[in-house]
């Protein structure tokens, strides 16, 4: 499975379905956490050139907040929950308001605390996503402690390039967007979940889904 370009339509669709099941579970978890309706996009399975990852997801220089986890076990993969920095701030404010009943502007909260809230949301969203996938595949898994970063989109996505760059020039990613609505002033909080299967895990995935 080192040549990413050789996937058939049917295989890409099957991988997308896996993403769909993960996204559904992640949306439910996020909805419970934020006490809001969550809108979810149908996930896309994307073959992206590792040289153009950042451009693919937006302005490479855009500042984003990102939570990253590694999953080990039957289906090894990495996952990123990535948000525009503004959306991440709004989300933390919403979360704290729900917890404490009063609104505190995020800029008045110590960075460690907002990071901790962000990490927790990312962890819950990504764990829910992974649980659903592993249930479907009948695999066991362990999830790492999450890591968090705020930086340029392009710098963040270097991690994807360094996973797939070892194998070739194309990354296979499952990308989906979740957004919370019903906020004041018609604002919206969006976040992308990007699933980065280990290249070695793809074969297992396709075999389990009976499309190999």
């Amino acid at each position, binding site marked *: 499975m080192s040549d990413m370009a050789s996937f058939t339509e049917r295989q890409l669709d099957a991988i997308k379905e896996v993403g769909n099941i993960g996204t559904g579970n992640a949306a439910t978890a996020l909805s419970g956490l934020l006490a809001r309706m969550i809108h979810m996009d149908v996930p896309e399975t994307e073959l992206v050139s590792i040289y153009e990852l950042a451009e693919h997801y937006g302005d490479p220089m855009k500042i984003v907040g990102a939570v990253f986890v*590694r999953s080990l076990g039957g289906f090894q993969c990495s996952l990123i929950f990535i948000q525009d920095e503004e959306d991440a701030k709004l989300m933390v404010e919403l979360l704290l308001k729900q917890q404490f009943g009063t609104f505190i502007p995020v800029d008045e909260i110590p960075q460690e605390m907002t990071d901790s809230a962000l990490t927790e949301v990312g962890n819950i969203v990504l764990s829910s996503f992974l649980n659903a996938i592993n249930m479907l595949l009948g695999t066991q898994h362990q999830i790492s*402690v999450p890591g*968090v970063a705020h930086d340029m*989109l*392009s710098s963040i996505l*270097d*991690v994807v*390039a360094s996973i797939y760059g070892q194998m070739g020039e194309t990354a296979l990613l499952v990308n989906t967007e979740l957004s919370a609505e019903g906020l004041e002033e018609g604002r919206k909080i969006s976040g992308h979940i990007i699933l980065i299967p280990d290249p070695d895990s793809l074969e297992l995935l396709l075999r389990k889904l009976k499309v190999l």
Partner: protein
Amino acid sequence: MAENTIVLGMADLMVIRAPIKLVTLGLGSCIGLVVYDSTAKVAGMAHIMLPNSRGLMGSEKVGKFADTAVPALIDAMEKQGAVKSRIKAKLAGGAQMFALPGMSADFLTVGAKNVTETKKRLSLLRIALIASDTGGNKGRTIEFSTSNWMLKVKTLGKGVSEI
């Protein structure tokens, strides 16, 4: 004299004659390697992604790996009239964007490996590395000016430094 700007993408490698500004945006674990010969007024930059090609080079970009990018860059410099003994190098990037407590994975520490391999390849070719800003956990945007041969490094939350 006004400098035109050229922006290098992932795995790009380029050699130019002054006055041109070379820019790379948002380096995470990747490396921005700059080499120049101020007498011949020739400079080059490579946006290196990974340390080692492990002999796997197919049709891939030569700038992708440290072990292939460094010799290719020096070679291209010499073809443009640079003299090897005068070539100086500056280096930025190689951050670790995410740390996962209790977990080690090769791709998480690839930044440090990129730095080590690039330095090793430079020293094998006896190229003097005169300045570097590497490591940490923040992304960098770099601009190399061929009017003063300085490398401007912008880091989120830390401002701008010149090396």
